[in-house]
């Protein structure tokens, strides 16, 4: 491998440290000298905490949505803004050490449209303001007077969308009141979500515009060194059941030891139950050939304490994010003990 390629790949890996949310090689497991670290017992302060935390190494605003067209076709939508810091501070102008990365996608049963944007901080090309809330990179925006009602836009070379979001429930906090442990050795991040968005708007696809409605889920997470060095990949599930209950669960696979899992059960009123390592589990059922690799696109997920035993099926197995650092992210349908829809993210394949 040429040195150039090596450097380029490391650059890409670091840039999208948030994207994959998990690969240790992407910098998430590296040392965080000088950066702030999450602490137990942190009291969130809103709306300030909707904004960026430049003294932490990585952070993201991550929205996924399950949509339905007027003809009943299922669609998936993604809008993500990542922040990755080279130094724990912000400086005005081109010398800013804050780098920003945006990913947007629309998934249909037949196709998967992806776009990526890159920017550096300090000059206003990308950023997040807490109040009134605005997160943007180039012409992509997620903004509103507060986080309850927002507009969401993105464009790519072959697609665009223009959506309205309205929250119908409260924010929920994962782990111990938003302190989300990521390994048995105690690495962690701050992690809260808004899983109760109603979403509607227009998707612009090569075939033409499509009016859609559905539900969206926003994840907010920031940390400096959330993963252990040997935690190589991550499978993340968000599920919205027809019962109105919701479930977030993830498996962090460790090359040097047992996997680490965690889950949050969310009732329709926003009451949460956090489950420790081992309570949630998922096993791959069927693999698909995606972008030259074997990717499990059909899973069975369990949370016995809530009677969950569901089969997770990708709406489009080819939902591959061909970005600086590639990963799989797409809408899924749920069947078995519970029925519903959700999103699946897989990195490290």
């Amino acid at each position: 491998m040429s040195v150039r390629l090596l450097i380029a790949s490391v650059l890409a890996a670091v840039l999208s440290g948030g994207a994959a949310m998990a690969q240790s090689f992407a910098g998430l497991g590296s040392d965080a000298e000088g950066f702030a670290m999450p602490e137990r017992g942190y009291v969130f302060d809103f709306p300030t905490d909707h904004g960026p935390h430049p003294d932490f190494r990585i952070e993201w605003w991550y929205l996924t949505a399950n949509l339905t067209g007027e003809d009943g076709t299922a669609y998936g939508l993604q809008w993500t803004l990542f922040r990755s810091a080279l130094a724990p501070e912000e400086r005005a102008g081109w010398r800013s050490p804050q780098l920003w990365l945006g990913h947007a996608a629309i998934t249909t049963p037949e196709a998967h449209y992806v776009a990526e944007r890159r920017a550096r901080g300090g000059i206003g090309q990308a950023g997040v303001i807490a109040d009134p809330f605005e997160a943007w990179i180039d012409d992509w925006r997620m903004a509103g007077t507060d986080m309850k009602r927002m507009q969401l836009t993105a464009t790519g070379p072959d697609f665009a969308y223009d959506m309205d979001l309205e929250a119908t429930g409260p924010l929920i906090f994962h782990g111990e009141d938003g302190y989300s442990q990521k390994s048995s050795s105690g690495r962690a991040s701050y992690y809260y979500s808004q899983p109760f968005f109603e979403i509607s708007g227009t998707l612009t696809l090569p075939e033409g515009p499509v009016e859609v409605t559905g539900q969206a889920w926003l994840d907010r997470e920031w940390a400096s060194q959330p993963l252990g060095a040997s935690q190589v990949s991550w499978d993340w599930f968000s599920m919205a059941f027809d019962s109105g209950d919701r479930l977030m669960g993830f498996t962090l696979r460790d090359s040097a030891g047992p996997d680490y899992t965690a889950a949050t059960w969310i009732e329709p009123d926003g009451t949460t139950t956090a489950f420790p390592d081992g309570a949630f589990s998922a096993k791959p059922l069927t693999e698909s050939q995606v972008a030259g690799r074997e990717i499990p696109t059909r899973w069975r997920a369990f949370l016995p304490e809530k009677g969950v035993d569901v089969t997770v099926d990708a709406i489009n197995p080819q939902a591959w994010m061909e970005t600086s650092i590639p990963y799989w992210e797409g809408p899924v349908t749920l069947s078995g003990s519970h029925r519903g829809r959700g999103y699946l993210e897989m990195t490290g394949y």
Partner: protein
Amino acid sequence: MRLGLIALLSHWRRNPWQLVTLVAGLALATALWSGVQAINAEARASYDRAADVVSGGDLAQIRRADGAPIRTAEYVALRRLGWQVSPVLEGDFTGPYGRVQLIGIEPMTLPQRDQADGALQSPLQPDGTEPQGNVVSVHPDDVRVFEGKDVTLRVQSERVSGRALADIAVVQDLLDRPDQISRLLVDPVQPIGRPDLPSDYRLTQSSGETDVARLTASFHLNLTAFGLLSFAVGIFIVYGAVGLAFEQRRSVFRTLRALGLPLRSLMVLLAIELGVFALAAGALGVVLGYVIAATLLPDVAATLRGLYGADVAGQLQVRPAWWLSGLAMALAGTAVAGTAALFKLARLPLLSFNHPRAMSMHAGAAARWLAMLAMGLFAAGAVFALVGQGLFAGFALLACLLIGAAFCLPALLSAALRVVQRWHSGPLAEWFWADSRQQLPGLSMALMALLLAMAANIGVSTMVSSFRLTFTGYLDQRLSSELYLTASSPQQAAEIATFLEEEDAAVLPIVWQDLRIGGLPAEIYGIRDHVTYHDNWPLLGALPEVWDRLAAGEGALINEQLARRNGLQPGDDLETGDRVLGVYSDYGNSAGQVVISLAAFQERYPDVRIQRFGVRTSEPEAIGAALRNRFDLEPDALINQADLKALSLAVFERTFAVTAALNLLTLSVAALALLIGLLTLANLRLPQLAPVWALGLTRRHLAVLELLRALCLAAVTGLLAVPLGLALAWVLLAIVNVEAFGWRLPMFLFPVDYLKLGGLTLVAAFIAAAWPALRLSRTPPDRLLRVFSNER
């Protein structure tokens, strides 16, 4: 086997000069080939380097319409509209020990194609932290410029010397130009629904005026044609050299075979011997080629820099591509030549004699066969010319024409000699011509090489000279104003115009706008009606009263490229809604061009302000000085047309130097081939010369006749080379150039040059024939006598 090898090699020990010719022939052919390859490879590598972010390569670019720098906030505003652009800031950086052009890029947004460069310049360390200090990538030559400066240098030999690359933040600080951006590179991938570019900015399409790569391709085409020709010449000389080595050892082979060495072993031995020679001579040739290239490269580099602004480093690097191709060429040439020789050897009767008449008859059949092959090649060439399209067809036609012509040569020469023979009576004359014809087969390879070398000379120098005449003529026409001026703002432009009119100078505004016609980039210009244009513009075809109609806004002039591309003629309608009034030639430009009257232009594009103009004046020096004194002009804002022309001419002179040197080399190689051919024959011909000597002709007389014969053959070959060379030039100018660049160069003839070349060829033939003739005149009589006593 070992003894056989010793016996074979002993031949070289006894005839060291033969070894020298064989090796020299192979080495020279390889040298010519690899030299041209080296220059090409080097120049191309240089563009590849230069075409990185530095020039934006083939990316479209955005600048402010008023020429002012772009502010960071403007860049951000464009990004937030959805425009996928990346900023570049460039400027001269002067250190204590010299100066470089410093280029600042933004790695995060740099279009993907250039990501590798971006990664090198990224604000990140490989470990994902921020680099300490200001990182600048420089060529090793430029390290001293930054001595004593607070920068961290990344020295990279693949950078272009004189150009340093750094992050835009670093460059803004080093140049002390905070908040400034020179231009924006436009990513080829843009989102849907992106709004139009605000009118403050001007978008230059990628293949517009600055497309260096496409223009320099023209020069490369010339070099490639030369490479092709030198390859052909080289193959012939290798063939000759190997043929000589076989011919002269016939008796050794016979003896070895008679002593019981199996044919297979003999052939293996010879193949090994040839392979070793090819490798050794090839290596020598590559070294020689390097010397040739190193000598010529500064001129080539200067040519390209001057002609097209393309930066070619004047330094040669040893590249595997061309030295491998040089060795491969030597091996392949030897293999081709050796196969024929080995084939002959395999059919050699164990106890054969030299049967001149039989050889000649056999050669006659071979010549007919070659001529038929040549006809086939000509037919294929005609098919390529009529049916084929694109550059490949042009080159295929060229190859068919050249090789076909070379294959025709033996038959043509033989026919010519037969005709001459009929005119002459008298025993000596008849013997002379008959003997010449009999010698022809042995010399035909060398003569083919000579033919190709001369044709190449004529063809390439006709092309280059035509190019020069056309181009300087074009400069005279198109650069008809004495001064060219670029103001720093439309306000300044207006002030300068007022000043110039007071000084009694005519001001010809130059305004243009990029657009697309037929989906391809084009430019539209507005010009003021002025006698300068009437007198000078090179119109290829036009409606009557074209200038009056243009001034009245009745239509447009278009350039030849646009006319050819869209099949337009005067009287047709353009998709801009203008009627085509005339077509003008526009060399060296790949984009389409439309010219309308200034009034019509300003009505159509009210936002485009005049900032450049030509100035007609009888006192360019004085006016130029006055302008510089009075206005705050950028260093390169004022161009004196005379300087520009002088520069272009100087560039052509250098091109000629390169062409002349290559010509001379090709010719010397061909002369060497002739020498080898004559030497091969010299020994074989003793049995034929001895009877003539015995009949009373002195050795001196015989030698003179030999010399005369060589000159005659060279002269006939030279005569045949003229039409071939002109055909070659025509194909290059009228077919290859049109296919490659969309414009046709008119062809000019240079008879005096051809005469000079003819003289040079005769001199070369004379020198090649002199040594064998001298040897003949000094042949001891007893050797001639022995022919009779040895009569077998």
